């Protein structure tokens, strides 16, 4: 049974929990049994931490279930200890699906087969942070000059060495 780590006030907020129950149920049905985290960010934005293996399925489920989804953007960041990919959705309320990756396994499936508009964001993260998106059709550089070989500009010095060459 999946256990949840809540912010206390969130646990008492029925509306928030109703909106996020589908995530809880999805992960439970997929047999995920470890603890995961939810937070309420300012401006009522919901934030959920989901393991890498469940991200693609969860987003697919969301697109099939909700008729009014919108992907605002995908943020990639190097927190110093690990890499983080944040999928910011708008479903009538803000929802951020967060997943964490280690420097050695910086790879996750592309969601562009489900949401075509995700490919630009994934290309940007891929070239600036060195995260590989599997099944991303166009891997060419979007912002960096062709032939760029000086590493990933948004990687911090800490963690794995910032050296792609």
């Amino acid at each position, binding site marked *: 049974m999946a256990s949840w780590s809540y912010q206390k006030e969130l646990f008492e907020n029925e509306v928030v929990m109703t909106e996020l129950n589908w995530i809880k149920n999805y992960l439970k049905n997929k047999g995920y049994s470890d603890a995961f985290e939810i937070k309420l960010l*300012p*401006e009522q934005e919901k*934030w959920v931490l989901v393991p890498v293996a469940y991200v693609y399925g969860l987003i697919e489920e969301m697109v099939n279930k909700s008729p009014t989804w*919108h992907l605002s*953007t995908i943020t990639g960041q190097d927190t110093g200890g690990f890499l983080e990919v944040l999928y910011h959705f708008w479903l009538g309320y*803000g929802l951020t699906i967060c997943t964490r990756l280690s420097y050695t396994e910086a790879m996750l499936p592309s969601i562009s087969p489900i949401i075509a508009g995700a490919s*630009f964001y994934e290309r940007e993260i891929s070239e600036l942070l060195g995260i590989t998106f599997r099944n991303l059709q166009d891997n060419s550089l*979007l*912002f960096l000059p062709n032939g760029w070989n000086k590493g990933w*500009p948004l990687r911090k010095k800490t963690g794995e060495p910032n050296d792609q060459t």
Partner: protein
Amino acid sequence: MTKLNIPIGPNHPLLKEPLSILLSVEGERILEGSLKLGYVHRGIEQLCQERTYTQAIHLIERVCGICSHVHSTNYCQTVEALLNLEIPPRAKYIRALLCELERVHSHLLWLGVLAKNIGLDTVFMYTWRDREIVLDLLEEISGGRVSHAVNVIGGIKIDLEQQLMDTIFRQLAILTPKLEVILSLFENDPSVRLRTQGVGILTKQEVLQQCVVGPVARASGVDFDMRRDIPRVPYNLIDLKIITHTDGDVWARSLVRIREALESLRLVKQILERIPDGNIAVRAKRRIPEGEAVSRLEAPRGELFYYIRSDGSDKPARLKIRTPTIPALSLLLDQLRGVNIADAPVILSGIDLCIACADR
């Protein structure tokens, strides 16, 4: 027939900003294209992470040369959310007033560019002449035509005197009928309709799949506007009408933008009528508590998105900006596929791209 590759940009007379498009053409028909950005990439996200929250405001204003105020407003709003700081209502009204004037100026600028590209040079001159009225107002309010530098964390730097408000009312009365004439021209003129109807059609499904926002999405029947969807002061207190259309072509986009500009003038009037008295700013702490915040605001081109992560210091640990041009660009190549090459400039200008915004 021979296949030809035509490179457009990064420096090209057709483009106002640097963007590289490689079109593969057979005869007059475009087969496919590829896109390259980054020619005006200034690394603003990274640069802001090396500056304090207050210093970053000036840099943020330079993301876009047209909608600079909405960028700094959204940035300040995100930092204020992290601080859990409630700014005075008067500051919110003044911020919204400038946002709406900026929308009118942005839409008129775009309308002039489109008119020029479809061969209506007279309309181009009229719209840019009328746009000066808005720019003069913005200059009188803030001291700057496009970079206003009025936002601070915790409120706003400038106040509106009664005399200035009267001037705005007077100028609105002059501008509104001028815009109505242009609207009726776009609605009825046969040559405008011939040149724009059925060109660059985007279906509702395509718009939703590519996550396109703003007037482009609303012209394809997607009723999505952050001014209404996130109820904030003053938009939740005034009568706001969202303009949509179902045709999804360049003509529909023109009508949506002109009607939106007229609606913005109506909103400016309402804001001025209801603006409350009081302070315009509150004091904000220099150090921002640890946390993350997301903020969405309706810029002239659509939903503008900011994400900030704070590590408890006086500098942001991560700042992410997603401007509305980025999703629109991802659709550009789909729109160009299969069309006549003469329609490419009309389609390009129909989207209202801002490459400086997209590159950051």
